[in-house]
Every structure is written in structure tokens, then in C-alpha cells.
């Protein structure tokens, strides 16, 4: 069922990505990793909807507040409006939360490996926030592939999360690396074997990013001996979602 949320805050994350805080009356709560659909209606009645991951963890103290982080897709139908036009006080039609597969719950067993490409980090950030707000001591590792330092979403947030003993954050730069980081290149078998949990560690791995990124990383994990049943994936593409 579609309902109308109200924008209560906007925050620029990078040149092309923005976090939007929404107030949703009667929000039922959500599990980290779930997403929602956003629908825009043009004056002539034309409608377009897209799926976006929820970036925040649900907390009882802010039970009707959620955050989305939207990366602008060139020539997109929905994302340019969300990133450049939508403002505080505006209404936004949403449907959700949806999805029960690509989710993490604090009571789940075993360590957690998160692997994100670009804005694929959004649902992983929700999992990290859920981990922090639950006071969980489950070991979490995040491998986050970005083009360059300026492309990193949630810079200060990730620094804060990485200060926890239970969370390890590792960035991989595919185009330009900051000073002091010699490696430039995509996630490969070496990165997986050096920074990810080992197949015997009993970890659940969550991979989110553009389809080619997810296919590559999932194949690398399986080739390294990880149980495909413990690798959960979520793909997004230039068309967004239905």
C-alpha cells in the first residue's frame, strides 16, 4: 500500500548522492537491509517508481523516521528529482518496508561480511547502524568498493563505526586512491582472501551493488570456497527497480 511520507531533512553525501530523512506516519518498523519503493506522479498522471534501500536502522525512539540515500543516475526518471529537487517539507509517496531475504537481525548467528559497490553500501550501512544500536558484539567486516575518495558515502559515519572493536572497515579504490593507499583496482581474489572472513568462519556475506559488481564478487566468494547458501546478494541497475 502506498502512503505519503514527509521530507524532514536532506544531507548531501557526495556530488551525486543525497540522504533524505523521511517522517512516515504509522511506519511499522523495518529490519536492516529492507528497502522501499518511491513513486513519483507527473502532472499528466504519468507515474514512475523505483526501489531504494533504507539507510537507517529502526529504533523505538525514532520509530517513524527513516533515511534513504539516493545516488543520481544520469538521465534517470526518478533519482535526479530526489537528489536535486525534493526539499524539506515536501511529500513523497512510498511503499514499504519490503524484502525479507537481504536482511540482518541482531539475533542471527555468526560473523557478518558486508561487501558493497558504490551506493550498494546503503543497506549495509543500515546493518552497521543496527549492529551499533543493538550493542551487538557480532564481528562485522565491511569491504566497500568506491571509484575515488570523493565517492565515499557516509564518510564520518564509517569512521565512527570503524572505531568499534567489532567492526572492520576496508575501502577499495577502483580509479583514484588517497595518498598513502598504494592499491588501485577492483575487488579481486587477493582482496577477498586478505580482508574477508574465511570460508570456515561461518560468516554470512551480504553483497550489494550494480549487477556486474555483484556477479563478480559472488563468483569470487564461491571460487574461494564460500558456501553459496551463505552469500546473499542484492543487485541494482541503472533502471533502478520496478
Amino acid at each position: 500500500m502506498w502512503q505519503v511520507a514527509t521530507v524532514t531533512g536532506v544531507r548531501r553525501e557526495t556530488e551525486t548522492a543525497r540522504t533524505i530523512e523521511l517522517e512516515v506516519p504509522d511506519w511499522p518498523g523495518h529490519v536492516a537491509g529492507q528497502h522501499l519503493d518511491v513513486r513519483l506522479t507527473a502532472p499528466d498522471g504519468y507515474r514512475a517508481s523505483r526501489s531504494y534501500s533504507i539507510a537507517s536502522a529502526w529504533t523505538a525512539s525514532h520509530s517513524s523516521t527513516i533515511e534513504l540515500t539516493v545516488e543520481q543516475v544520469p538521465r534517470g526518471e526518478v533519482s535526479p528529482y530526489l537528489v536535486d529537487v525534493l526539499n524539506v517539507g515536501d511529500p513523497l509517496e512510498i511503499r514499504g518496508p519490503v524484502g525479507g531475504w537481504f536482511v540482518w537481525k541482531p539475533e542471527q548467528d555468526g560473523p557478518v561480511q558486508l561487501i558493497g559497490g558504490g551506493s550498494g553500501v546503503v543497506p549495509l550501512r543500515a546493518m552497521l547502524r543496527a549492529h551499533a544500536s543493538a550493542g551487538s558484539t557480532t564481528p562485522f567486516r565491511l569491504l566497500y568498493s568506491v571509484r575515488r575518495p570523493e565517492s565515499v558515502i557516509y564518510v564520518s559515519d564509517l569512521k565512527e563505526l570503524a572505531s568499534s572493536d567489532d567492526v572492520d572497515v576496508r575501502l577499495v579504490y577502483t580509479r583514484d586512491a588517497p595518498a598513502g593507499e598504494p592499491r588501485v583496482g577492483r575487488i579481486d581474489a587477493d582482496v577477498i582472501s586478505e580482508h574477508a572472513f574465511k570460508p570456515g568462519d561461518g560468516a554470512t556475506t551480504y553483497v550489494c551493488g550494480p549487477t556486474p559488481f555483484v556477479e563478480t564478487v559472488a563468483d569470487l566468494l564461491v571460487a574461494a570456497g564460500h558456501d553459496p547458501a551463505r552469500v546473499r546478494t542484492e543487485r541494482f541497475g541503472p533502471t533502478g527497480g520496478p
Partner: protein
Amino acid sequence: MSETNYLDGNAAAGSLSELFAVDLTSAIAQCNGCGRTSVFAEAHVFVDAPGMVARCPGCDSVLLRVVTRPNDTYLDLRGLTYLRVPNS
């Protein structure tokens, strides 16, 4: 597969939530084409077709189609032998 313009079953969750009382992304689906069983979240979902099409990640057969029109929605499930949904 070289073509990577698909998404996955997660992207279908919103549309399917209008039709099903339970979340289908974590349901186990059996393909009527090749017999493979997998979590529906792993299906390849195409949203650039008229409507939405979910295909088997193994044999590429159509598992499910959803076409939404202004006043009604078509749901075509012929490519699925079954859906196994956990009891809540």
C-alpha cells in the same frame, strides 16, 4: 551470462507485496523449466520489459510476470512449479 541488465528478486518485493500477504523474496521457488530450486531473491528480474519479468538464474525460463495496468494487475505464475514460504 554476458547480459547484466537484470536486477534480482529483491527488486520485485514492492510489486509483489500488493499481491501476496507474505514476503516472497525469501520464498523457495522451483523453476518449471529446469527444476532448479532457489530463493526467489536470486531470480533475475527485468524491469525494462512491459511489466516485470522474473527469470530462473539457472536456465533463464520465465518464472513469473507482473503487469500492472491502471485498474488491474496481471500475475502470471506459469513458470513456477511451486513456491515454498516459511510459516510465520
